[in-house]
C-alpha cells in the first residue's frame, strides 16, 4: 500500500480487520503526518502517541487472535479537547481549564473505544467552544489545510482541519450554533449535527444545555455515517438523551449508491433568508449540487419558510444565559483569563431577562411545529448553504471582542444556528471549491431523528458527483 493515510475510514477498518494492514503502521503513518504538519496547521493541543501505539498493537494482536474489536477496529481518530476521559487533562480550549482532569469518561469516547477506535490526541478548538472561526488566544489559531491564511471555521476547528489534512480518519465535535457544520464546510469534510438528544452528552463540556449536540466529522458521508452509528443512541446518564429507536445509518449510505436512489425524495429550496445575499459563485456551486441530486432521482421543489433570521437572533436568548450561568464564577473571579471575545459574548447572557429566556425556551415548540408544518411537509430534505460566501481569511474575522464582532460572527453562523434552535439534524457535505480554492458545502436538513435520510441524500450526491476526494495541497 502506498500512503495509507489516504484510505477512507471504512477501507482502513476493513484492511486492518482482514489483516492486510497493521493498525500500528497506520497509527505510525498518522503520527508522522501530524509531526510534519502540526507546525503549519496547529490542529492538535496534545498528541498521545505512546497510548495510541500501544492500543494499535493490541488491535493487531486481536486480529491475529481472530477477534474483531468492532466497526472502527484499529482506526486512528482524534477529538476536540472537550470530551472528558477520566484521569486525563481536558483543556476545553481554555486557560481556565488548562489543568482540569475529569473523573469520568464521556459516553461517546467509551463507545468509540468499544468499537475499536484509537485516539491519537486532542484537537484545537475555540475557547469553551465559543467561536465560529478557529481563532484561539490561548493555543493559537488553527489553520485551514487548503490555505493557511483562511479560517477553519469553529468551534470544532481542529476536528475539521485534522480530518481534512489526513491526520485522523474522523473526529468528534460539538455543535451548539454550527460548530460541526462550519468547520466541516470550511475544511471540505462531512459533518453531522444530530437531532437534539440523539447523541449522549454525558462527560462532555457543556455550553448550552438546550442547544448542545455532539457530532462527528469525517472525509466522506459513509465514514461519517459509520462513526455516527457508533456514537448515537440513548444514555441513561444524560437526562436529555432520547429513547427514539435508531435507524440503520450505514445501510442508508449503501442504498444510496444505486443510480436513481433518490427517486421520490423531495429536496426543498427555501423561498427566503438562506439564499438572500449569497455570493454568486457559491450560489452556482449550490445550483450544481441540486442538478446532481436531481440526476439521482430527487425532485427539487421551492418551499416556504418562516422568519429564520429572527430564529437566529432568538437563539441568543437561550445560548448566552445558559453559558453565562455556567461561567458565572469565573466571570466574577477570573475575567482576565478569558479571551476578550469569549468574555464579551458571555456578558450578553447576563443581560437577558429571565422571563425572556424562559419564553424563548418555551417558544421552541411553536417554532418547531411551524417549521415541520410549513417547510418540511413540502419537502423531505431542505437544501441550503452552510456559508453564503467563500471561506473568509483569518484577518477578515480577527475581530476580538470589538464592536464589529457581533456582525462578523453573526454572518458566519447565520445559516446554521436556526437549526440548533429548532433541534433538527443537519449534514454538511462538500460540493466543490470557489475560485480561491477553498471548499464550499451544502447543508441538508431533515425532520427530527431522520439522520438516515441526510446520509442517504449526501451519499447519493457523492455517488453522482464523484465526490470531492481531492486532498489539500500539503
Amino acid at each position, binding site marked *: 500500500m502506498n500512503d495509507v493515510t489516504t484510505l477512507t475510514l471504512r477501507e482502513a477498518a476493513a484492511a486492518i480487520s482482514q489483516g492486510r494492514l497493521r493498525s500500528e503502521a497506520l497509527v505510525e503513518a498518522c503520527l508522522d503526518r501530524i509531526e510534519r504538519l502540526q507546525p503549519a496547521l496547529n490542529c492538535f493541543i496534545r498528541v498521545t502517541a505512546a497510548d495510541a501505539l500501544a492500543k494499535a498493537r493490541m488491535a493487531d494482536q486481536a486480529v491475529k487472535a481472530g477477534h474483531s474489536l468492532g466497526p472502527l477496529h484499529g482506526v486512528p481518530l482524534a477529538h476536540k479537547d472537550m470530551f472528558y476521559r477520566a484521569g486525563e487533562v481536558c483543556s476545553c480550549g481554555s486557560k481556565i481549564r488548562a489543568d482540569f482532569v475529569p473523573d469520568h469518561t464521556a459516553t461517546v469516547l467509551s463507545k468509540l473505544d468499544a468499537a475499536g477506535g484509537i485516539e491519537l490526541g486532542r484537537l484545537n478548538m475555540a475557547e469553551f467552544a465559543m467561536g465560529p472561526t478557529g481563532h484561539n488566544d490561548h493555543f493559537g489559531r488553527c489553520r485551514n489545510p487548503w490555505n493557511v491564511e483562511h479560517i477553519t471555521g469553529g468551534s470544532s476547528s481542529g476536528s475539521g482541519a485534522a480530518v481534512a489534512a489526513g491526520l485522523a480518519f474522523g473526529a468528534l465535535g460539538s455543535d451548539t450554533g454550527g460548530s460541526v457544520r462550519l468547520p466541516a464546510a470550511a475544511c471540505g469534510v462531512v459533518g453531522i449535527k444530530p*437531532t*437534539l*438528544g440523539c447523541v449522549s452528552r454525558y462527560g462532555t463540556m457543556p455550553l448550552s444545555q*438546550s442547544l448542545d449536540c455532539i457530532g462527528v466529522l469525517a472525509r466522506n458521508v459513509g465514514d461519517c455515517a459509520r462513526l455516527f452509528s457508533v456514537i448515537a443512541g440513548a444514555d441513561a446518564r444524560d437526562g*436529555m438523551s*432520547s*429513547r*427514539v429507536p435508531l*435507524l440503520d445509518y450505514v445501510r442508508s449510505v449503501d442504498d444510496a449508491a444505486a443510480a436513481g436512489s433518490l427517486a421520490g425524495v423531495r429536496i426543498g429550496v427555501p423561498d427566503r433568508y438562506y439564499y438572500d445575499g449569497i455570493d454568486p459563485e457559491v450560489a452556482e456551486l449550490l445550483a450544481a449540487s441540486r442538478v446532481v441530486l436531481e440526476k439521482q432521482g430527487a425532485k427539487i421543489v421551492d418551499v416556504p419558510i418562516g*422568519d429564520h*433570521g*429572527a*430564529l*437566529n*437572533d*432568538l437563539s*441568543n*436568548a437561550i445560548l*448566552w444565559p445558559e453559558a453565562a450561568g455556567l461561567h*458565572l464564577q469565573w*466571570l*466574577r473571579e477570573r*475575567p482576565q483569563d478569558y479571551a476578550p471575545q469569549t468574555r*464579551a459574548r458571555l*456578558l*450578553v447572557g*447576563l*443581560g*437577558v*431577562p429571565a*422571563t*425572556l429566556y424562559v*419564553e*424563548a*425556551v*418555551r*417558544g*421552541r*415548540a*411553536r*417554532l*418547531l*411545529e411551524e417549521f*415541520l408544518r410549513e417547510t*418540511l411537509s413540502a419537502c*423531505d430534505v431542505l437544501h441550503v448553504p452552510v456559508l453564503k460566501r467563500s471561506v473568509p481569511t483569518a484577518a477578515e474575522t480577527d475581530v476580538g*471582542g470589538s*464592536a464589529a*464582532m*457581533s456582525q462578523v460572527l453573526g454572518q458566519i453562523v447565520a445559516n446554521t444556528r436556526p437549526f440548533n434552535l429548532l*433541534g433538527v439534524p443537519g449534514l454538511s457535505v462538500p460540493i466543490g471549491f470557489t475560485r480561491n480554492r477553498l471548499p464550499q458545502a451544502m447543508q441538508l436538513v*431533515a*425532520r*427530527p*431523528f*431522520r439522520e438516515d*435520510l441526510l446520509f442517504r441524500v449526501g451519499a447519493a450526491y457523492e455517488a453522482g458527483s464523484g465526490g470531492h476526494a481531492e486532498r489539500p495541497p500539503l
Partner: protein
Amino acid sequence: MSGPAGGVASRAALERVIADIGVNVNADDVDAVARSLERIQTAAAPLLQSLSFDETSERYYRLLEADALDGAGR
C-alpha cells in the same frame, strides 16, 4: 430589561444588573450587551407573541420525539 434596551436609562439599569451579579463591566461592555439585547428582543416580539400556558419546553421535547415515533417520513 424589558422596554427599549438601547435607551440611556436601560443601559444604566443593565449596568446595575450586571454589577449586582458581581461581574465587573465597563461602558463599552454594557453598550455591546445592550445592542445584542435589542436584536434579541426585536426577534422575540413577533415569534413569542401570546405564548399559551401549555406551550412548554416539555411540549417541545415531546414534539421532537413524537415526530419520529409517529413515523413522519420514516
